[in-house]
């Protein structure tokens, strides 16, 4: 049952990734694209964790942690660029 649920979850998040990618492509605004990438990251984190359940391995945990952190840094840096140009001032 877990396996089945995990499969469904994988599919759902996979579709989520595709939806985010669509938004990344279409835009129309830069902010939309950044947002899409941010959401894509969130989906990826969910996928990694679900994948870990499916595989029965927690070796991928750090990866999920990193994606959580790094997605944030990229998004914030990008917004800072739009707002202030120089991201470290």
């Amino acid at each position: 049952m877990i396996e089945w649920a995990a499969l469904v979850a994988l599919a759902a998040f996979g579709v989520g990734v595709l939806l985010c990618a669509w938004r990344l492509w279409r835009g129309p605004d830069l902010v939309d694209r950044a947002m899409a990438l941010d959401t894509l990251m969130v989906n990826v984190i969910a996928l990694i964790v679900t994948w870990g359940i499916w595989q029965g391995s927690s070796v991928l945990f750090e990866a999920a942690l990193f994606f959580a952190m790094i997605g944030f840094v990229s998004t914030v840096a990008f917004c800072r660029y739009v707002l202030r140009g120089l991201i470290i001032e």
Partner: protein
Amino acid sequence: MADMLIAALLLVGAFFGLVGSWGLVRLPQTMQRLHAPTKATTLGVGGVLLASIAYFGWVRGEWSVHELLITLFLFLTAPVSALMLARAWLHRERERVRATLPRPGAPGVDWGTFQPPPEESGSGAEPRR
């Protein structure tokens, strides 16, 4: 029983994750779409992380709570991401949006995106440290 709980958590997570992403595609305005990531973040990832804790604890007998750290980070960062994205959008669209926004209240005060903080206004050049 544990299996069912885990499966349920997974499915709940999956559902809200998908809804969030779907919102990103379907909602017509940028500001509306900004609501999507929080959905995917909170219940979407949250559900999956809970499922993971439960799975490794109950099914495999390796209790681990380090997934909570991911949640912690996500809960810490998601609001800032959203705020910065919103500000970026407000800034880019300022010509159009600024007039339509409600004002903060006090006279002469505007939103941070458009107005420098009180400490900064008035002083053109700042002394170097």
